[in-house]
Every structure is written in structure tokens, then in C-alpha cells.
């Protein structure tokens, strides 16, 4: 073959000339920029409002940045704001939420992972029937089951306690988590399971020594899913807790929407942002895993 030297080429060659500022790019990035502003704006408004003093709020608008930054609203929101009856801020609600979320996440994941494992690897007669009911249960509006559960908890003597809420969260987390774990364990090579059985490992032996160590990513996804879900819950908190055991979301709503006194918008926004801080932190830190969690919720097995 004869090499043609580059200088002998004439006419179009190399990459097709493209303008960086093409009409397509202006439209594309322009739209995305506007969209990003729309989505980001509320967070910005929350932050700046929470850093302003009340006089400044009354003079300006919600979008103008604070002239004088003050953290007093945050302090007040945390420890002094009134919920109508008491005036100890969000702190009680925060610790209630922690006390609800931690055991609920642990329990729901422990139970659902074992369930998923049993469904994936130890199928027994009728298992699929229960599983199908469970999945359909995920679609039943919670309102339908609210009162029967009130009765159950009352009979057990834990209505209104944190323990009762933990049980409720475990129950309602079960469908999606069981699905998540079942699908994950099904995707693991079956030979692994068979090899372990040939080596004489039993139900729990395989679960703890083979499945658990291989499932760190899916457990992480489940934790993210549950922490955000339970932290953000409002309905169960308002139904199954008492004022002294209210989770943070309920406390927040009571502070902001309490009809007494002058509305302190800066304190309200500080309280709002403090409540959103836990799921937001998880979201920004976990990134792709969070997306995987919601995608897992959408993919039906």
C-alpha cells in the first residue's frame, strides 16, 4: 500500500466541524440550567431564610441573600421552638427519630434479608404465595391498615411507644426489602450455595458465612432506602406515637403549623432544614447507591 501524505488530501477531512455554541447546545444546556435552578432554589431559600433575622425577612424577599448572617434561628429551632404544648424545639423529635430509625432499620433489614434468602435459596411449598401477598400488600394504601394495627398494638400494650413504631416500620418495610434481597440472592451463582450445602453448611451457616459477606452492597442500598424512608415518615409517626414520642417530621410540622404566636419564618426554615439534613446527607454521600435503591424499588422480580 502506498501511504498518501496528508497534504495530498483535499476537501472535507477529519472531524465534522461543529460549533461549540450550536443552537442544539444552547437549547440543551439552557434548559438544563433553568431546570437546575428550579430544583435547587428551594434548598437555597431554606438556607438563606434560616440565616436571616426576622426584621430582615419582613423587609426583603425570600430570594435575597442575608445581609447579616445569624445562627440564632437554628439554635431556637433546635431547643426552644414551640409545638403548641411544649417549647423544647426539635431536639426531642430528633432523638425520637434516631430511637425509631436505628432499631427499625436494623430489624427490618435483618428480617427481610433472611426472608429474601429463604425465598431465593430454600424454597418451600407455599413460599411464593406469601411473597405474592406481601408484594401486593405494598400497594395497599396504608390508610386501610391503620386502624387494625392500632388495635394490634393496643392489645400488645405498645400503642404509642417507640417499640410499636419500630414494629410498624418493620412491617411496612418488608415488601420492598424482601423483594430487594430475594432478587439479589437469586442473582448470586447457585453453585456457590450448592457447594456450601455439599460441604455440610446449614440454613444459618450459609446465610452468615457465605451470603452476608457477599452482600455488602445490597445491605448498603437497603440501609439507605430504610433510613431515608423511616426518617421521612409522617403518617405512622402521627398515628402510632404520642406527643412525647413524636418523630422529627411530626414535631417539625407542629412547630411550623402551630397557630399560636407570631410566625417566625427564619426559625421555621431552620427547623425544616435541620429535619431534611439527615436524608440529604445520606443522599449526597451515597450518590449512585441511592439511585440503585429507588431503581430496585421499581424493578419487579
Amino acid at each position, binding site marked *: 500500500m502506498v501511504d498518501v501524505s496528508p497534504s495530498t488530501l483535499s476537501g472535507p477531512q477529519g472531524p465534522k466541524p461543529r460549533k461549540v455554541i450550536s443552537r442544539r447546545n444552547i437549547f440543551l444546556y439552557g434548559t438544563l440550567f433553568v431546570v437546575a435552578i428550579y430544583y435547587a432554589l428551594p434548598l437555597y431559600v431554606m438556607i438563606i431564610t434560616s440565616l436571616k433575622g426576622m426584621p430582615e425577612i419582613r423587609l426583603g*424577599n425570600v430570594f435575597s441573600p442575608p445581609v447579616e448572617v445569624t445562627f440564632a434561628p437554628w439554635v431556637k429551632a433546635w431547643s426552644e421552638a414551640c409545638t403548641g404544648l411544649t417549647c423544647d424545639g426539635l431536639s426531642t423529635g430528633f432523638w425520637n427519630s434516631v430511637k425509631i430509625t436505628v432499631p427499625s432499620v436494623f430489624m427490618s433489614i435483618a428480617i427481610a434479608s433472611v426472608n429474601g434468602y429463604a425465598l431465593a435459596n430454600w424454597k418451600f411449598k407455599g413460599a411464593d404465595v406469601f411473597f405474592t401477598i406481601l408484594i401486593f400488600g405494598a400497594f395497599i394504601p396504608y390508610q386501610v*391498615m391503620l*386502624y387494625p394495627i392500632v388495635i394490634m398494638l393496643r392489645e400488645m400494650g405498645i400503642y404509642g411507644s417507640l417499640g410499636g413504631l419500630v414494629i410498624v416500620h418493620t412491617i411496612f418495610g418488608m415488601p420492598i426489602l424482601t423483594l430487594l434481597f430475594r432478587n439479589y440472592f437469586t442473582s448470586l451463582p447457585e453453585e456457590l450455595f450448592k457447594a456450601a450445602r455439599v460441604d455440610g453448611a446449614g440454613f444459618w451457616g450459609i446465610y452468615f458465612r457465605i451470603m452476608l459477606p457477599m452482600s455488602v452492597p445490597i445491605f448498603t442500598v437497603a440501609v439507605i432506602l430504610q433510613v431515608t424512608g423511616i426518617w421521612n415518615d409522617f403518617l405512622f409517626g402521627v398515628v402510632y406515637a404520642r406527643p412525647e414520642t413524636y418523630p422529627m417530621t411530626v414535631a417539625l410540622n407542629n412547630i411550623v403549623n402551630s397557630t399560636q404566636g407570631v410566625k417566625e419564618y427564619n426559625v421555621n*426554615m431552620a427547623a425544616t432544614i435541620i429535619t431534611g439534613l439527615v436524608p*440529604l446527607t445520606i443522599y449526597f454521600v451515597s450518590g449512585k447507591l441511592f439511585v440503585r435503591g429507588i431503581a430496585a*424499588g421499581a424493578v419487579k422480580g
Partner: protein
Amino acid sequence: MSNGRPSQLFRNKSAKIAAIPMIVTALFVFVGGTAWTVVYSFTKSGLLPRLKWVGLDQYERLWSTNRWLVSIENLIIYGLCMLVLVFVIGFILAALIDQKIRFENTVRTIILYPYALSFVVTGLVWQWILNPDFGIQSIVQGLGWESFAFDPLYNADIAIFGVLIAGLWQGSGLVMVLMLAGLRGVDQEVWKAARIDGIPAWKTYIFIVIPMMRPVFITTLVLVVTGIVKIYDLIVAQTGGGPGVSTEVPAKYVYDMMFRANNLGQGFAASTMMLLTVALVVIPWAILEFGGSKNRG
């Protein structure tokens, strides 16, 4: 035949024991609880559940209560707008992000973060932004357009759209992520084939790619619809149902009847209606999705 084999009941014993929480939840809470509520919706329960049959009385009263009718109307308006807009916005955003753009992760992160926030937080922040004295209305007026009026949370006629704005802000990121996953799942060679065939991009989306994404659309639809029917916290936080009863929704009606008005029977009847609504969507979907596969084994 079964000589020396342990009886059927005790095979897989550990697995069965491990599955007890699931079985209890499925049978007692989901099936039992639902059945209980449906049964008691035909009784004259007030402060406490009582098995005193009244037939369809609760339903008749329900459908002649103005507040319930408004709730249903709101749910339909909110639901239809939400459904259409969340799909249009979600899909368009996903398609834009799929154009091999720069800063993809940043854009996606910004669009999805509201989904991580609770409805209470969402409702409160939009209550503040839509505040007529300090929010959008006052800013536009401050720019010189004195007669500009946009106070959805104080105007009963458009209050539900104020909730819609917040709902879209919170939920469209989820649809975007699901649609993006669907777009990424489309065989790249199909795109190449369409380019060879000279099909413009918009036609490729409408006639080839979207039909290929049918499963994703259906799954998203089911998720969005069940979410719409459940809407409660957002209303409580953003409007409290007001002004008046203009933003009442069924889920709030149920809660108020059961735990505030001591009118359990109404609550049971209303929640049964909610169940019916969801069933109308979920059952056809389940038949479509799983009905066929049963025949195949």
C-alpha cells in the same frame, strides 16, 4: 416411598421458621387488616369499632359529604396533572441528560435531591416560597408588575395547583431516574440502525425508543399512581387542607375521621374506597405483567 424421609412439614424447617415474620405480616396485617377494615366499613363504628351492621349507610353518607366530594375532585385534578406532567417532565429531562452531556452527575444530583426530602419538608418550603407577602408574588410585584397575583395557598380556586408545584418538584426526579435507566437500557445498535435509516432523533424517540420502554413506563405509572393516592403529608404540611376544604384529599379525610372526629365507620368506608382506586390500577397491571407468565410456566 417416604421411608426414612422426614415428614413434609419439617423439611426446610429453618427456612420456614425464618419466614414466619413474612407469613404473619402477609396474612395477619395485609390480608387480615384489609379484610377487617372492609368488614367494619359496613358497621356503625364510632369512637370504637362495633359490629353493628348498617349495610351501605357509611358509603351513602360518604358520597353525600361535601368534604369527601371535594377530596375526590382534588385527587382527580391533582392526580391527572401530576401524572401527565411528571411523565412529560421526567422523560424530557431524562432524554436531555442522555445526550452525553457534561456535568451529568451534577445535573442528576440536583434534580433528584428533593426526592430524598420528606413531604413535610417539601410542603413547608413551598409554603414559604409561595407566601404572597414575601415569596414569588411579592418579588414579581416588586419588579414593577403591581397587579401580579399568584397566591395559590390563599386562593381556594387554585390552591391545589400550589400543592401540585411542590409535588412535581419532589417527585419528578424519581421519574427522571427511572426513565434514564430505561433509555440506557435501549440497545445502542437500534439507535445506530435508526441513524442509518435516516430517522430524525425525535421520531426515533416517539416511534422506536418509547415503545421499547413500555415496561419501564408501566412500572413507573404504577409507582406514581399509588403515590398519588397515598398523598397526605404534603397536604398536611403545606396547606392543612385549606383554605377552607379546598385542598382536602381522601387520605386526610380518613385520618381525620378515624383519629379526630371519632367516626371510625366513615374512615373505614373512605379507606376502602382508596383501596378500590388502587386496585383498579394494580390488578390490570398485575394481570398484564404476571398473568401471561403463568401460562408459560
